[in-house]
């Protein structure tokens, strides 16, 4: 999106935030991901769609560094943050301490406060996570991801457990944060409309391979009633095997 000064890692990625080459992941006899290639540009918003068991989570875990890469190559920035479907806040730390988790020192508190204000949680700085609503908890999880200034932000079905209205509000929040923080985003989702509302590009993962790749060149904010939106929606649904 913008010309940041290139760090060494990014230089090695040849201008990409993420570069995956010939990545294969097997569990015993089963191949989950097969010879996968994927580039994500700095600041690009990519949505990854697919059925359960298509290998989305495996890809995400590999990108997050939670899984070893044995076949193929994955280059990713060192600053990677993940927001999971469950907020995964530590119940015994208040919201601020959850955001600064891993950073010792008082100076981080001001940083955390600023980011919590940014995600709209400025009024719950000292709250216990068990007292937060689903949307508030995900906002805190977003703040925890962003305080690390990630070059790649991964969102693993982050709004799947939220009610429809909260989900819409969170989608708008993610768009705002993405513009401001200027990081590449990989959004894993089940929801075609969510992918179309947010992403620059949508990928459909099927049986371990990227079968469909759709550019979404629409200006934001996007409207569902837009005929172009509708056409893209048909294509993605078709790729997912849903025919109307």
């Amino acid at each position: 999106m913008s010309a940041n000064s290139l760090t060494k890692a990014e230089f090695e990625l040849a201008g990409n935030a993420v570069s995956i080459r010939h990545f294969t992941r097997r569990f015993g006899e089963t191949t989950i991901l097969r010879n996968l290639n994927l580039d994500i540009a700095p600041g690009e918003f990519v949505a990854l769609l697919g059925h359960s068991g298509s290998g989305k989570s495996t890809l995400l875990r590999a990108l997050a560094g939670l899984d070893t890469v044995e076949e193929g190559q994955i280059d990713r920035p060192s600053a990677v943050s993940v927001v999971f479907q469950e907020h995964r806040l530590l119940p015994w730390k208040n919201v601020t301490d959850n955001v600064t988790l891993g950073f010792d020192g008082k100076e981080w508190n001001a940083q955390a406060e600023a980011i919590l204000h940014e995600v709209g949680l400025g009024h719950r700085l000292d709250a216990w996570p068990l007292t937060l609503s689903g949307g508030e908890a995900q906002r805190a999880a977003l703040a925890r991801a962003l305080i690390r200034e990630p070059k790649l932000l991964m969102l693993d079905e982050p709004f799947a457990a939220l009610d429809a209205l909260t989900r819409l509000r969170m989608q708008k929040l993610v768009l705002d944060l993405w513009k401001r923080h200027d990081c590449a985003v990989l959004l894993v989702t089940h929801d075609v409309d969510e992918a179309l509302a947010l992403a620059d590009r949508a990928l459909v993962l099927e049986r371990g391979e990227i079968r469909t790749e759709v550019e979404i060149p629409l200006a934001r904010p996007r409207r569902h009633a837009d005929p172009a939106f509708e056409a893209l929606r048909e294509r993605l649904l078709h790729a997912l095997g849903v025919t109307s």
Partner: protein
Amino acid sequence: MVELVMNLFPARTASHQRSLSTGGLLRFCRRYLSVALLLVLWQAGAQAGLIPSRLLASPVQIVHTAWSLTLDRTLPQNLLVSLGRAGAGLVLGIAVGVALALVAGLSRVGEDIVDAPMQMARTLPALALVPLFILWFGIGELPKILLVALGVKFPVYLNLYKGIRSIDPKLIELAKTLGLSRWKIIRDIIIPGALPDLLVGIRFAVGISWLMLVVAEQVNADSGIGHMMMDAEDFLRTDIILVGLAVYAVLGLLSDQIVRLAEGRLLTWRGRTAVQGGTR
């Protein structure tokens, strides 16, 4: 357990909840009414000569004896000795139990080495070791403190170990994506996550420490509440024995309340969720 009882007696549970809503005071009175009635009957029986004071002193006699034992400093001195032993044994037992649970909970090798012998040893009745402890450690303070520590370490170990092992692996996974070091994972996730179970273990431990002390002090001691009671037996002073029993009861109740208070302070993040049961 509580749910089980409630399921078995649905009607009773309903009436129980109704009485709670009509007012705590009424329920408080009712709870202690039967106790008070029992005391009155006991006293009346003693005064009417139905209960021989040689076998069972009357409540008034007990209160009177407690007061005179306090005045001649027998009770406070022995109480202090008993408290010292229970405290020392408790501290030692908790330290050993926590250390073993950390070793077993944090590494697979540690689990293999520590857990099997602990699971075996915990089924041994600790009190059966009293003769062995006298042989090994004599009849001084050491065997008494060690006996308390021995009993205390099992509930601490079992509950903390269970607590460490039942921490949500998703939180550990999250910590790894945040790049937390192993030490920070232990400090920020494992220890606070297992703290509720540790406190449950300590509550059991406190109860067991008094149990072990009673036996240790009655077998070989020249001081302590247990010794005071054994002494009284020689002179058929049932009033002193009953004072000792009352002291044990009050101590047990008080120490349990202290641990509950600590739970409330340390686990504010849980809000008002009830304290769950643990492994003894």
